[in-house]
């Protein structure tokens, strides 16, 4: 099991890396000269889209990432994202479907007017607040309910770990290479 899991994780890493490079190639094809900020943005966007595409839209956060890119990206970014995903991006705005659940929840909270000052109530409140904070961290948080939140968090954290891992290795290797070149 460990072998398969590690191999599958390696596969994910590889997939991410390949897609990421693809996106970056498109960017460099578009702009030969980019400012550092542009480069950073290009790198980040390519990485985000690549890691989201490894999930192939099975998770909420990956869909949200792609939706955000499709609604706000333009030019090279869009083409790069499309290339990574292998499909055209839709330009429509995200529908406000998620509002329902949130509205309901607020109403529910409002209906309970009772003030409970017991320790348990305080603890629950703390937990609830933290859940809310965590929810906001995850892309596409508006459509997450409590159970989905944890599942999405799990997936998102693992994907972030892959992303950070690959980027870190790349950065390290690039840096050492750079140093080597300087030294030589």
């Amino acid at each position, binding site marked *: 099991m*460990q*072998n398969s*899991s*590690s*191999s*599958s*994780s*390696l*596969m994910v*890493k*590889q997939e991410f*890396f390949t897609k*990421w490079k693809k996106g970056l190639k498109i*960017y*460099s094809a578009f702009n*030969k000269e*980019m400012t550092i900020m542009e*480069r*950073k943005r290009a*790198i*980040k966007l390519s990485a*985000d889209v690549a890691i989201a595409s490894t999930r192939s839209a*099975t998770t909420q956060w990956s869909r949200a990432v792609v939706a955000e890119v499709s609604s706000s990206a333009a030019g090279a970014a869009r083409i790069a994202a499309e290339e990574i995903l292998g499909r055209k991006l839709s330009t429509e705005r995200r529908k406000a479907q998620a509002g329902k659940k949130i509205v*309901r929840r607020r*109403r*529910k909270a409002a*209906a309970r007017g*009772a003030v409970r000052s017991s320790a348990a109530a305080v*603890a629950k409140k703390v*937990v609830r607040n933290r859940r809310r904070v*965590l929810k906001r*961290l*995850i892309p596409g948080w508006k459509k997450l309910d*409590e*159970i989905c939140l*944890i*599942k999405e968090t*799990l997936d*998102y*954290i*693992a994907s*972030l*770990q*892959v992303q*950070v*891992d*690959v*980027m*870190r*290795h*790349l*950065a*390290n*290797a*690039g*840096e*050492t*290479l750079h140093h*080597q*070149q300087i030294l030589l």
Partner: protein
Amino acid sequence: MDVVGKDASVEPSNANDDSLNYHTPNIAPEWQVNGNNLTNTSIGMTSVCNSMVESSACSSPSMVDSFCPTVWDHSINGQSLGYCDVNVQNDVSTSSNLGSVRADLGWNPSAMMRGGMFMPPVSGMLPNFPADSGFIERAARFSCFSGGNFGEMMNLFAVPDPLNPFSQGLGVVHSQRHEMNMAELSKEGGLFMGKPGAEGSPFKNEKRSESLHDEAKQGVGIAGNDSDEAECSGRGPQEEVACMTGESPGKGLGPKKRKRGGVQNAQNDENNETPTQSAETTKDTREMKQKGDHNTTSNSNPGSKNGKQGSRGSDPPKEDYIHVRARRGQATNSHSLAERINDLLMMQVRREKISERMKFLQDLVPGCSKVTGKAVMLDEIINYVQSLQRQVEFLSMKLATVNPRLEFNVEGFLTKDMLQSRGGMSSLGLLPDMTMPFPPIHPPQLGLIQTCIPSNSAEALRRPINIQSPSVCAGFKEPSSQVSISSISEVSNWEDELHNVVHMGFTSSAPSSSQDLSGSLPPGHMKAEP
């Protein structure tokens, strides 16, 4: 489900006591006139009592028959739908019994059915029948139960309580689900009990009970369709005792009911199985239409989905219920029995899911294994996610500075790095399942990595890489080796550099791997590495 059976038996007896004389005449015309309603009601009640009925197979059906055999058949036949809920076998009869009892109290039929179990002490129950809402209203008017009584009963159904009667009465509960269903049913009974004489509410209750029914049905179906007639009969007396504060009339009638129920059980089962199911479904559909969108959604969800989806579908319905409840603006939260039951059932399912997933999170987030308690763990998770996101930003900036032309061909050799080191992102591979635990990074990979380090040539590197790939990437031999080879060839021009870099990569990754081995990956470490 002795409780159910008991309730059924108790109710009719109670009903017989007081209002039987009064209500019976009304029942007949009601039944005949509103065959459909009856069916629907019975369906609703049946669905609620699914679990109860199944296991109890109690005499209640027979008792019901004794009261209104003709009516039942009429109504059931009238509906005769294609739905066949196995669970519903005895529901119709049971529900009718319960319903009649409830009607007396002015609850809507479904409520009555559910509440029936817990309402044995409620006297003045009608002999089975309740299908008509108009009848219910009438019954409510004549009901002698004051709110106080209901209050008592409601208290009995406080969150922990609903389960108690069940546990006592049931003794051997077939499955937790059954208990949950029973609790749910008792909750519903309480729900309805709380609104005696409320004409508007019976409808709402009915609707609510519908969704609850659906969910209960679902749960019951999953729990098992065993009919424990024998057990039920045996438990009858237990249930009576366990059930609410029994009132003498109710108890007195109980035995009678049971007897009758026993006689007619077989008949009812045969007759009611199919029609009950169809009737129930019809009623459910009707109820659903009457309800708002929330309820409809909640109803459809449990009804349509099963298994995993069902469990997931039940979550939104449960939430919808909560929303609906809040929207009603009830002063006290969930003082209705049915709601409590539903909440209990849902809470349990949700808690299980949440705890299971929190365990995964604990493995994934470093430093969470020692932490207990949701708040602290959530805090850790939040910090970890934030740190990961910040790292992505930081690394992308760093890469932007390092590579003026966004070229990463040179970095192809990094794939070797990734392949060899940090084999332990095993959690990612397991995520899709979410069923397997996340194994920690295993030592063999680390050992292999270390063997590569001493090599000084690209070829030497190739060897360990090729050797490693098959072992490491069991299922992905070719691609990984190909990648390694291609990346190696790419870098062949920089053999020395490659060696240095890879070596550094290994060394830099090795400590991280070792750290990973220990299962913790301090975020700060990543930044400190270069």
